[in-house]
Each structure stands twice: as structure tokens, then as C-alpha cells.
């Protein structure tokens, strides 16, 4: 069951990563006009349409992570400690904390995207979006590396 949930957690994380990266690129580097190229399409996505999906995906991914977290504490963290892999253990500790702060950031993220045309909120909206993207990238890469160290399904 844990393996199944881990796969769903990973798939949700990949989807979240794609959506949030896409949105972050579109606010950091917006296209003035769509030319039809891949890069232009990437930059000209209507970002607001991603917002609610990103909030649901973030919460769902964190919920799944929280569900399989006890398994990590019992079987993965102890292995990391046995092998004195302190840096990966610390990296995961940091992941749990930054994801928690990311969860807390979601209401503000929604608020600043509620009126995507409000120019006075543009800077805040951009920074919050990029911050969330960095949090998700960090969480994804850390989870991926930890999973590789432990070995999938072992």
C-alpha cells in the first residue's frame, strides 16, 4: 500500500512541478506576443487558470506525503542513521519544514492571484509564485534522491 501511495505521491508531485514551473516562467518571463514556438507558448500560458489546480495539487501531494511519512520515520530514516547519512537525513528534515511553510503560503498565493490583472500586486504575486516553485523543486529533488538511496519498494 505504501508503494502505491508513494507512486501516486510522485505522480502528483510531477504534475505540480510542471504546473508551478510553467506558471513561474510565465510571470518571470512573460511573452509579449505568441509566435507559435515552444518557448513562446511556454511563456504565454494564462497563469490564472493554473492557480486553483496548483493549490489542490499542492495540498493533495502534501496530504499523501503526510500519509506515507510514518513509513519513512520507521524504515527509511533509521536506515539513514544506521549508515550515518546525515546530510540526506537533514535534507529530508528541511523538506518537511519547507513544505509546511509552503502549505501555509497557499492562502496568500490564492489571494494574490485572485485579481491577476491588479498591477500593484504583480511583484508580490511573482515572488510568492517563484518561492512556491522553489519549495516544490526542493521537495521533489530531495524526495527523489532519498528514494534512490533507499531503493524503490525495498
Amino acid at each position, binding site marked *: 500500500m505504501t508503494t502505491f501511495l508513494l507512486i501516486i505521491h510522485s505522480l502528483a508531485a510531477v504534475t505540480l512541478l510542471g504546473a508551478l514551473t510553467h506558471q513561474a516562467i510565465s510571470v518571470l518571463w512573460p511573452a509579449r506576443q505568441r509566435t507559435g514556438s515552444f518557448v513562446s507558448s511556454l511563456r504565454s500560458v494564462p497563469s490564472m487558470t493554473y492557480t486553483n489546480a496548483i493549490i489542490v495539487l499542492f495540498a493533495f501531494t502534501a496530504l499523501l506525503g503526510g500519509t506515507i511519512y510514518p513509513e519513512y520515520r520507521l524504515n527509511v530514516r533509521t536506515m539513514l542513521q544506521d549508515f550515518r547519512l546525515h546530510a540526506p537525513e537533514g535534507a529530508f528534515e528541511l523538506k518537511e519544514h519547507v513544505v509546511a511553510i509552503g502549505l501555509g503560503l497557499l*492562502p496568500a498565493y490564492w489571494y494574490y492571484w485572485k485579481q491577476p490583472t491588479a498591477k500593484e500586486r504583480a511583484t508580490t504575486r511573482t515572488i510568492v509564485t517563484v518561492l512556491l516553485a522553489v519549495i516544490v523543486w526542493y521537495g521533489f529533488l530531495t524526495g527523489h534522491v532519498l528514494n534512490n538511496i533507499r531503493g524503490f519498494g525495498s
Partner: protein
Amino acid sequence: MSVARALPVFSIAFAVIYVASVQYNLAVVTYHPQLAAWGLLVEAPRQGPAMYWYGWLITSAVGAGAIAALSLALPAHAVERASAVLVWLVPIVMIGVIAYIIRGYFLR
């Protein structure tokens, strides 16, 4: 008066309370994964490790909700202006504080 304007305040307060919860272990619940059992407030490990993360999240959400509600009594314009910067600055600083708190993992 829009209640939604309290949302950035919630996020700012959440980050601060969460870090305080980690540093001072202010969990409102404890989970014992080996026993699959929950305990109220902070409990010492019974059998195997004790998990406080869920408790820290609840503490932070409840505390941030209360502060966000109180912020509605403050002038909207001032809160809006302060929140526009603090909403990203505070989480970044708090991530730095957390990294400092757990630096021992990376310095061994």
C-alpha cells in the same frame, strides 16, 4: 471589508508560528507510528519514534487563523501594504532560520 485580505496575514503568521513550534516543540498532537497511536500535546516516544510534525502544523494553522482574524481589526490599507512584502520575506527568512536550527545534520 473583505475577509480575504487576512489571508496574507495568515501565511506570514503561519511561517513564524511553525518555526517557533519546531524550535520549542509546541505540537498539539503527537503520533507514535510504531503503535499507530495518537496522543494529545507533546508526548515522549513510547515505542519507536514520536512524530510531532502533524502537531506543529495544527498549532501553526490555529495560531495563524487567530492572528489573521485579529488583523481584520487593523486598517486595511496598512495591513495590505505591509503584507505585500512580509508575505514573501518572512517565509524566506523562516526557511533560513529552520536551516540554521537543523544545521547539525550538515556539519557532522
